Every structure is written in structure tokens, then in C-alpha cells.
């Protein structure tokens, strides 16, 4: 069995009386898409923040490539190769599409403290940026202001920025949200290719996408993982059906 890239071990996090993470353990292995599903308020976002940084677990550890990262800052984890996309697009809206991608490259290459060379004329950055935009299908929008992009295009840009980091693992928080059937289908195909480059921990509400993509699924309910397994196993699991799949809600 290959070593997992990302390992979450017995993570606890409480907000007052609410146990948002109640002893969560999961891992992400090379080449897989591991989907994390669960009803609203199950603690998915809390878990993501403990993996990507921003929230420190009360107890338990997060390891990335064998190294404990539980105490690292967001930017340190990003530098280690954790590429993240957000549920609500976190982009510099005043920037052009290209500038957002180049910002990613500046961070990735650690060349923040260069004061004189015009960054938007750096041929190496531009080539890589255009390549990333092409991969997500935004090549015609490089000079568009990010604020003018449609919701779906912003999601694509999120992925493009994550790509520039050449991450060793992706952490994607509901990349399909609000995409519509067509966009959802296109992104599903893209993620299937992408997992060969780096495994993806996918938090997603779109069940069709999850069942089509995931190699493994973990189900999170009230801060606990109640089941982990293949698509078929999860579909057949009575506990999961009762907690989640049985009464499918339509979520925004």
C-alpha cells in the first residue's frame, strides 16, 4: 500500500459545547479522489480549515508528506504544496484573471520580495499562467477583470490558481457549487484527469459528481466520520442512508 500524502489523526475541535470535529481520522493517498460528504453543519468546513490552516485542532494531528503541519500557518502549508480552492471564491476581484494566476505563481516561486522587475512581463510566469488558464478553459479571458467573470468562470479560475502552485495535494471545497449541469460535467472530467497529478480531497454536495469521481468516500455527520469506503460500499451502507442519503435535501 502506498503511503498517504495527507493524514488526519484523531482531530478534535470544539466551539463551546458544539463538537465540530469529534475525533476525525482520514487520509488521502496518491492518485485518488477522496470525497468528503455530509449534511450541512456536519463540520466539513471546520475540518478543511484545520487541514489548510486557519484553525488549530484542540487535539490530534495533521500530517502532510510525513511532516506534522498542525501548527503551521496557511502560507507555510501552501508552500509545502497544499493547493486549495474555496467554497465561496476567494479571488482578488479588482485584478484581471491573469493577475490572479500570476499572483499564485509569485507565491509558489517564493519571489515575493522582488521590487524592480515588472512581474506581468515575466515570460516564464506568463507562459505558465496562460497554460493554467488554457487547462481550465479560461484562455480567452486572461485580460478580463475578475469581478466581471460569471460564477462558473470564477470557479474555473480558482482551479487555475491552484494549478499554478503545482500542489502535491488538492483541497477542494465544493468546486461544483453553482456550476450548472454543463459546467459540472466539464469540471468532473477535468478533475478525473487531475487526480493523476495530485490526489484531491473533495468536499462536494453534488452527489452525481461525487459518485462519478470518488475513489473513496468518507461520510461526516456531527463531527464524526460514520463510514469510509468505495462508492458501492457507501451507497449500500444503511447508516449512511439513514443519516444522509435517505433524505436528500436540495442545497444552495
Amino acid at each position, binding site marked *: 500500500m502506498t503511503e498517504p500524502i495527507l493524514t488526519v489523526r484523531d482531530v478534535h475541535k470544539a466551539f463551546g459545547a458544539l463538537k465540530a470535529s469529534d475525533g476525525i481520522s482520514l487520509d488521502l493517498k496518491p492518485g485518488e479522489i477522496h470525497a468528503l460528504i455530509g449534511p450541512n453543519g456536519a463540520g466539513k468546513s471546520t475540518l478543511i480549515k484545520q487541514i*489548510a*490552516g486557519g484553525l488549530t485542532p484542540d487535539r490530534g494531528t495533521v500530517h502532510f508528506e510525513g511532516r506534522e503541519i498542525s501548527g503551521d*500557518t*496557511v*502560507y*507555510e502549508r*501552501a*508552500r509545502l504544496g497544499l493547493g*486549495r480552492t*474555496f467554497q465561496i471564491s*476567494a*479571488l*482578488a*476581484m*479588482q*485584478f*484581471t484573471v491573469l*493577475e*490572479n494566476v*500570476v*499572483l*499564485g505563481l*509569485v*507565491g*509558489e516561486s*517564493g*519571489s*515575493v*520580495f*522582488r*521590487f*524592480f*522587475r*515588472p*512581474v*506581468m512581463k*515575466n515570460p516564464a510566469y506568463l507562459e505558465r499562467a496562460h497554460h493554467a488558464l488554457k487547462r481550465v478553459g479560461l484562455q480567452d479571458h486572461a*485580460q478580463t477583470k475578475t469581478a466581471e467573470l460569471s460564477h462558473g468562470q470564477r470557479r474555473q479560475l480558482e482551479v487555475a*490558481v491552484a494549478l*499554478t*502552485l503545482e500542489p502535491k495535494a488538492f483541497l477542494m471545497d465544493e468546486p461544483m457549487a453553482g456550476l450548472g449541469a454543463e459546467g459540472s460535467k466539464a469540471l468532473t472530467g477535468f478533475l478525473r484527469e487531475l487526480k493523476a497529478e495530485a490526489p484531491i480531497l473533495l468536499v462536494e454536495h453534488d452527489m452525481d459528481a461525487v459518485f462519478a469521481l470518488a475513489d473513496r468516500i468518507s461520510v461526516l455527520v456531527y463531527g464524526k466520520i460514520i463510514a469510509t469506503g468505495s462508492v458501492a460500499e457507501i451507497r449500500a451502507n444503511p447508516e449512511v442512508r439513514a443519516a444522509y442519503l435517505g433524505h436528500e435535501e436540495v442545497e444552495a
Partner: protein
Amino acid sequence: MLRETHLNGLLMLALLIVPLAALALNEPFIITLATKVTILALAGVGLNLALGQGGLISFGHAIFFGLGGYSMGILASHAQSFTPLMEVPFLIEGTKLMPVIWIVAIAVSCLAALLVGLLSLRTSGVYFIMVTLAFGQMFYYFAISWPAYGGEDGLVIFVRNEFPGLNTLVPIQFFGLCFAVLCAVLFFVSKLNKSAFGLALSGAHFNAERAETVGIDITRVRLVAFVISAGITGLAGALFADLNRFVSPTMFSWHTSGQIMIFIILGGVARLYGPIAGAAVYIILEHYLGAFSDYWQIYLGLILLFVVLFAQGGLIGGLSKREAAHD
């Protein structure tokens, strides 16, 4: 509508032509006014790097303006009284040489900004404004209560400091020097804005979460920007002291911080040439409205209100077409 670069060019041209015309018409006071605009604009360019580009609303930039002023005042007062600053463990003498004074002013301001920044950049938003204001007041009251260099009365420097090859007491020559410094700093900041650092700084401003997620240590980026910004404002402080041949604790007061901020808001936040337009309008209003009424700031207040409510790009934004930020 004009393109923004053309408007900026016109602005700089006007700033250069007005004192030259004043020279021809033998109006030395106008030259002094133009010099004042140039120096105050420089202070604004400094603050604008932190406030406009970086979104760091510092209400304490008078600290650096004042430190620049006092760097000049202390060095020059020792030079004019022929007493060294200190003799143990090694001898430091005063100086009347502008380049040396400038370097000291920049170094002192940067160092102070490093300390102030390290402490205040832990906060953000309103708290950052209040913490920088509090630091400003600390420096202000320190300057008032420290008797060695004039205390509340300030320090008078009898003869303007020297610059090799120039007679700085001739108004047009001193103007030319200040104008050259402003141009050099504008060149430096325009490079900076378009560099990787500039992109990271505005990225951290527009979306801090995004900047961190791509691996940028935003606190360090902001600290460096704050320090550079302070160095520029400190340099302006040294020039301002030389213009007046006088330094006083007023340079440290929160009014000064507010005034520099007004230049930026009037001219256009985050626009490189904004503070030049802002400082020019401010000084013109002060001079001509001030002649009509002691309460001229009421009109300034109305204009500011108008700009904030209806023309957020300031004068530069209102009079020109916006160009792509990183063209």
C-alpha cells in the same frame, strides 16, 4: 476624457512650469508654494504605498514625517553650534549636507516603521488606525516634552542645508532639487507597484485569504511596504524642515497624519500621482481661500465630502479614464 498617464504627465508639467513662470515674473513666494506642494506630495506618495496599494490605513505617518524633520533639525543644529552629537564611544558630529541628512532621515524612519509596524500590523481595520494614531501621539508628546531640541518651541535652523553644486537658498534651485527627488521616488514606486512585490501587496489588500493560500506571508509583505512607505515620508519630512528652516512637534501631530491622508483622498487613493494633485489642490485652497477666511477648511471639508461621496477615484480618477492596473 484624458488617459491617466497623460493627465499625470500634465500634472508634473504644471508643477514644473508654475515655479519657472514665477521665476520669470519675479514671484518667489509662488516658487516656495510649489516647493511645498512638491514636498507634501512626496510625503503623500509614501503614505499612498501603504494606504492605497496595501490598504493599510495608517493614521501615524506623521511619526515618519516628524522623524525626518527632526533628523534634519538635530543634525543641522549640532552643525550650526559646532557641538558634536556624541563623543563616547565614538564621535558623531552634526552635518549641513543634505544627502547625509536624507540618508539618516530615511534610516531613522524605516527603523521606527519596523518597530511600529511589527506591533501594529497584528491588528487590522479600525484597530490598525487607532494603534498607529496612538503611536503618533506618543511621538508627539515625546517631542513636546524633550527639552534638548527645543521642546514645544521647536528648533530653528538659520541657514538652509547644503547640496553639492547648488545654492539651496535660491528658491528655484531648492525647488529643482525637491522636484528631482519627487521624480526619482515616483520612478521607484512605479517600478515597485508593477513588481512581484507590488502584486503581492495589492493581492494581500484585495483578498488576504487568497494571498495566503498561494503561499504569501502577508504580514511580512505588509511590514516591508510599511517600512518603505515610512522611508519616503521621512525623506519628505527632512525636505519640509529644510523648506521652513524650522522643525517643531507639530510635524508629529495627528493633524499632519490627517493632512497627508487628505492629499491622497483628494487626489485618488492608490493612484501614483494622486497625492501630487491632492497636495496641489490643498495648498492652492489654503493659500487663496485662506486669504478670504480663517475658516477656509470648511470649504475643504465640503470638497472632501464631495470626493468621498461622488468621486472615489479622487481628482485623478474623476478626470481620466482608468487604465489596466498592471499594463
